[in-house]
């Protein structure tokens, strides 16, 4: 699951990273946002949505995307 701050909500972490990049010579960078990645093995895919809604993300302030990889 890829979890990121919802668009429009102040993301000070993203802003701090955005400010740090030009100092290293990386220019022309905008809209930096910092989220988090959660990896897990699950037997029953149908549980994933509910896992995200109840615990892994806070849907009030975060969006999430799920990517399924099969082993």
């Amino acid at each position, binding site marked *: 699951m890829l979890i990121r701050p919802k668009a429009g*909500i*102040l993301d*000070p*972490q993203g802003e*701090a990273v955005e400010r740090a990049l030009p100092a290293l010579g990386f220019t022309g960078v905008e809209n930096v946002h910092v989220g988090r990645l959660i990896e897990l093995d699950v037997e029953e895919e149908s549980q994933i949505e509910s896992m995200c809604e109840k*615990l*892994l993300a*806070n849907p*009030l*302030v975060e969006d999430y995307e799920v990517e399924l990889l099969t082993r």
Partner: protein
Amino acid sequence: MRRVWAPLMRFGVLRFPGSCDEVDALAAARRVGDAELIWHADSDLGGADAIVVPGGFSYGDYLRAGAIARFSPAMEAVIEFAHEGGLVLGICNGFQVLCEARLLPGALLPNANLRFTSRQVHLEVVHTDTAFTRACGAGAGGPATDRLSIPAKHSWGRYYAGEDTLAAIEDAGQVLLRYAPGENFNGSLRDIAGVRNAEGNVFGLMPHPEHAVDELLGGSSDGLKIFESMRLAVEGALA
């Protein structure tokens, strides 16, 4: 004046692994009534008249502040208690837990300056006619507003709610505390420091009233007004 034979009301103060303010909350509650700790794995609230969800870093605050504590057996019991109308106060991490449990509207996000900050803050009491603020102001018939000086210490205290929710809670009088002008160090929307639920029996705030109960420590006992308000509410309901 309380009659000497009247039983004291009883506070239950939750303790999670990682709580750190539960002992001060217990001491503050004991200034106005009886109080006992409730371990997070216990789903029995021991007949408490009111619950305090204290500050700290419950379960390490992994994932998001308060996200995991919300599913503890004690919190499941607190959610039921709240739905039955019981008084619940959440302080700092406790406020985060109550938001995660959807007992309170909105969410707490990292401070806008990304720093842990510990300082005394001045708060404006927006409404003094509630179960959590009725001892503020000069009491019944006194001024409808008041200022409190109490400490705040957190890194996840930026109150956020969507515009529709903000408008709804303002209209319904659910915003009980605001940071006074110049005091909103964490970037909370509309300077919100404390909100209650629509029913009025659940309240959360980021600053710490339990750390301001004696003028010898920190120069203010304003925090006691929150605990005293709860006592008045419970004893009013029991009378």
